[in-house]
């Protein structure tokens, strides 16, 4: 009997350190090195974005107000059953909460902090926020409202017309317009130009509103600010598990792509998110995005833009950009599941598993990001990493109960 009790006691004692370690109480968190501190300070603060030079309505209060009303208005779709907010639901962190929308193949990205983006959509098929806003309006798989029908819809609805004219001036009656998308090819050039102008104006008002969807505050930002100013209380109030997770984040080189105060480099990478059945990727990502951009009538160097964006001059196409997708921001990331361009991972644990277990043998593509190597994270590492990612959530959003977690 005594022997059995001793064995049990010894077993319990041997497990306790592991439990306490798992809970983050085993030892004090090792202080950040000077290099790590520099990296932390490069990730915060996220200052307010500057105005978009390509959009003359950027920051315009009237346009923001009109754009906000349009964003939630189902009359912006051909069927009058879908609004922008139908897929970018603010209560779902501006996503639809689905892996991919019905009829689509790519995950609906969150709209948090879109004003900071260099490229838009997973493939960078648009180079400005307003040009991106045009894509779902005319896309038959999304809102499906062609520019002629849009002009008529706005003209024929007093509240929409009033809102439009408040921002953009008088709207002439669109002569070549019907709710049928088939009118697209039968309208004369001047009429097409008028309708295109309405489309661009609507998109620029939408963009002015989208620029205001900003989240810059999190527990991590308070920690970084404490580090910057020497405020020990602010540093110490940062959750211990998040501190450990921060070290995992840096040690694992996550910051190479998720860099800067918006936790993204805004560029494109192949991180080996391929079909689960082992076949090669069929979504060409950036490869086709460059083609889409090249053929777009709404590029920032075109006649609809208020200013040319110099980045367009230096676009580099090539076979190596096949299946590359844009790095998403990590701010509020725990609120925007499922994850990845194809919504392949239902939870953040699945994402971490991908990075933890990734092996070269699963890679069948020629130009993946070679820094993506199996991290072999322990369960403690994983939980700490999630604690760190949780510290990137804007607490105001959670307190207000606006967002599902």
């Amino acid at each position, binding site marked *: 009997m005594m022997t059995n009790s001793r064995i049990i006691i010894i077993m319990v004692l041997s497990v306790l350190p592991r439990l306490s370690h798992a809970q983050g109480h085993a030892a004090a968190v090792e202080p950040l090195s000077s290099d790590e501190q*520099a990296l932390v300070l490069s990730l915060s603060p996220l200052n307010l974005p500057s105005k978009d030079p390509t959009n003359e309505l950027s920051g315009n209060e009237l346009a923001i107000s009109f754009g906000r009303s349009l964003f939630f208005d189902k009359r912006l779709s051909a069927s009058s059953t879908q609004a922008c907010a139908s897929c970018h639901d603010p209560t779902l962190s501006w996503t639809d909460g689905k892996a991919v929308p019905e009829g689509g193949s790519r995950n609906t990205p969150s709209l948090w902090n879109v004003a900071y983006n260099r490229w838009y959509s997973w493939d960078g098929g648009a180079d400005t926020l307003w040009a991106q806003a045009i894509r779902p309006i005319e896309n038959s798989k999304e809102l499906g409202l062609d520019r002629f029908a849009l002009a008529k819809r706005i003209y024929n609805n007093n509240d929409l017309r009033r809102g439009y004219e408040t921002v953009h001036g008088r709207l002439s009656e669109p002569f070549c317009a019907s709710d049928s998308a088939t009118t697209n090819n039968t309208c004369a050039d001047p009429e097409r130009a008028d309708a295109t102008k309405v489309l661009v104006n609507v998109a620029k008002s939408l963009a002015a509103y989208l620029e205001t969807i900003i989240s810059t505050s999190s527990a991590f930002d308070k920690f970084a600010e404490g580090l910057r100013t020497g405020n020990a209380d602010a540093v110490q109030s940062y959750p211990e598990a998040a501190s450990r997770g921060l070290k995992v984040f840096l040690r694992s080189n996550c910051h190479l792509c998720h*860099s*800067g105060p918006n936790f993204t480099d805004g*560029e494109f990478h192949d991180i080996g998110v391929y079909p689960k059945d082992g076949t090669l990727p069929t979504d060409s990502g950036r490869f086709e995005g460059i083609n889409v951009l090249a053929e777009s009538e709404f590029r920032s160097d075109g006649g609809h833009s208020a200013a040319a964006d*110099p980045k367009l*001059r*230096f676009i*580099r196409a090539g076979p*190596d950009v096949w299946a590359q997708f844009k790095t998403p921001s990590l701010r509020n990331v725990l609120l925007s599941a499922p994850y990845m361009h194809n919504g392949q991972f239902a939870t953040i644990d699945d994402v971490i598993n991908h990075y933890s277990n990734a092996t070269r043998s699963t890679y069948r593509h020629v130009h993946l990001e*070679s820094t993506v190597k199996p991290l072999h994270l322990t369960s403690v590492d994983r939980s700490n990493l999630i604690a760190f990612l949780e510290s990137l959530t804007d607490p105001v959003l959670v307190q207000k109960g606006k967002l599902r977690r």
Partner: protein
Amino acid sequence: MSIDEERQTKGVLLCFLWYMAISTFDLASSAATVDGCRTSVASWMTAPTNSNSFAVKFATIPAAVPRNQLFRIVAWVDGRAEVEELRASAEMQAHQHGMTTKPIAQRCSDGSFQIDGMLFHMPGVWTIYFDIRSRGVVERAQMDLVVR
């Protein structure tokens, strides 16, 4: 027309065609000439070409390469022969990829080159390559830069 006259005419014609070809090349390579590139630089880095025929002296603008922002390079080439063309590119050898951009080089009126569209989108060691075409041969100079 005598044989000599015919030869002379052919020679003049060939010279003319050769001159036109050279002129066309010059026009193409100097069409976007920019002024006074070198005067904007205070200090230079030097990278010899692999065969030591040339030395590329270059500077980044701004001097500290910004992470994930477009920056410019001003470069001029010290060597024994005329430089017909200079191209710049860069890659992260540890990542096995290069930039997401394709830089554009322009010849400057002072003989140097201005290269726009450089973008080091990730922190780490980047190797800059300068490819110099001279007398139909391309030589490469390279240097590592660290971006934090």
